[in-house]
């Protein structure tokens, strides 16, 4: 069964239609990179996937279950997918350990006694075990983003969503976060990455999606797509990103 099925999803903010019939199926193990111009609806699509935004029509199913449903089931679904935001969104008042183990403890995934061990394990995966007792405000942007990733990993998600995880970082901090994501990709975690890092999208993803005007405009294996863009829109998008 597909991990995620997005069928003909439409989403408007007032009179502005942002998603104009998006369809996309994600199989377990896939690494999907989504690229596209600013305003093309990439973030909105990710937010619809975990129901931070409602949709106007169409359907989104996660392992066959519709995402739009009562709060209790939605919570259970959200526990199975992680999302990493551009602005990290760590909880500033909680130490790294608590940031990472808050949800696992509250949802009963891990006992209070075993929480620190879980924190150490996931922080080791992002290379930050020595920061377990720091507050987010004492970390660099890159470190904060890696903690945000660890916070998701602690829930053992079946799907990871990244919304421009490196866009808010100073250039010299981008690499450390991308390396962590690459490492997750090697470990067969299914991921959807919205990104502006074209090289990263090309090298890491198993499928590239070009979104344009609220639609999936082109998709396919990244190397192929970059080599032969089928539409003028994608071709000009590639040219624009090369200049930048």
């Amino acid at each position, binding site marked *: 069964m597909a991990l995620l099925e997005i069928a003909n999803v439409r989403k408007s903010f007032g009179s502005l239609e942002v998603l104009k019939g998006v369809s996309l199926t994600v199989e377990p193990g896939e690494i999907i990179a989504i690229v596209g111009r600013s305003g093309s609806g990439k973030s909105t699509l990710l937010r619809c996937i*975990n129901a*931070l935004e409602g949709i106007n029509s169409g359907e989104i199913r996660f392992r066959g279950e519709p995402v739009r449903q009562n*709060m209790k089931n939605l*919570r*259970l*679904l*959200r*526990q*199975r997918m*992680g*999302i990493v*935001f551009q*602005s990290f*969104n*760590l*909880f*500033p*008042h*909680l130490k790294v350990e608590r940031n990472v183990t*808050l*949800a696992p403890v*509250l*949802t009963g995934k891990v006992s209070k006694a075993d929480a620190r061990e879980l924190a150490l394990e996931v922080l080791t995966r992002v290379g930050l075990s020595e920061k377990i007792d720091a*507050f*987010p*405000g*004492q970390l660099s942007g890159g470190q904060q983003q890696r903690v945000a990733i660890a*916070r998701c990993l602690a*829930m053992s998600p079946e799907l990871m969503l990244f919304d421009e995880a490196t866009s808010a970082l100073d250039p010299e901090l981008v690499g450390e976060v991308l390396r962590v994501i690459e490492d997750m990709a090697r470990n067969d975690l299914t991921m959807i990455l919205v990104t502006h890092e074209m090289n990263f999208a090309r090298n890491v993803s198993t499928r590239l999606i070009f979104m344009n005007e609220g639609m999936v405009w082109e998709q396919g294996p990244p190397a192929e797509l970059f080599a032969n863009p089928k539409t003028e829109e994608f071709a000009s998008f590639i040219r624009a990103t090369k200049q930048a």
Partner: protein
Amino acid sequence: MTGFNLSQILHYQDLFLSGVLMTALLSCIVMFFGSIIGILGAVGVRWGPRPVQYALRAYVEVIRNTPGLIQLFIVFFVLPSFELRLPPFHAAAIAFSIYFGAYAIEIIRAGLDSIPRSQIEAGQCLGITRWEVFRHVICMPALRNIYPAFTSQIVLLVLGTSIASQISAEELFYMGSFVESRTYRSFEVYTFVCAIYLVMVLILKTVFAAGGRILFRWPAHD
């Protein structure tokens, strides 16, 4: 009047002491119930159904835009005509809780508003309940943001309890006035009472400052 002489009024130290205790007790009770009104009210204003929001806003506006003294008189003098006769201390506790609660709602609501949406969303995305998001994500940062405003409001409350003397609640200022009427040492009495209020407030502020240091250990700018 021959110079500044405290010895005569210190004769009444037991009265002053009991006044101080009454003022402290009254303040504590009002702080407690007023804060409960503030928390529930702010949550209601923020997330409650429309009619609840309107009712709470009307409450806040009426209380904050009318004299506290009159509110106190209404509770003490007007309620008895509805067969609800309250001792002065009780009337003061109720009137001040209603008064403090209205200010607390405004302050706490601003605190809730100060938490960015993205923080709440990050909590929701972890699959924890709304209550857990409130308790673990919103509460402490919001409290830190309102701490200066909220603690100054408490200081104003402590000083403001002196108007309870107008309905003969036997708090500090009432006791002072009583001693003055016995000794005619107005200058000494009121200076002394002022000094006691000052000491009480300074102690309170020290406690608040220490509490803030203990509660808010994380770096201020994230």
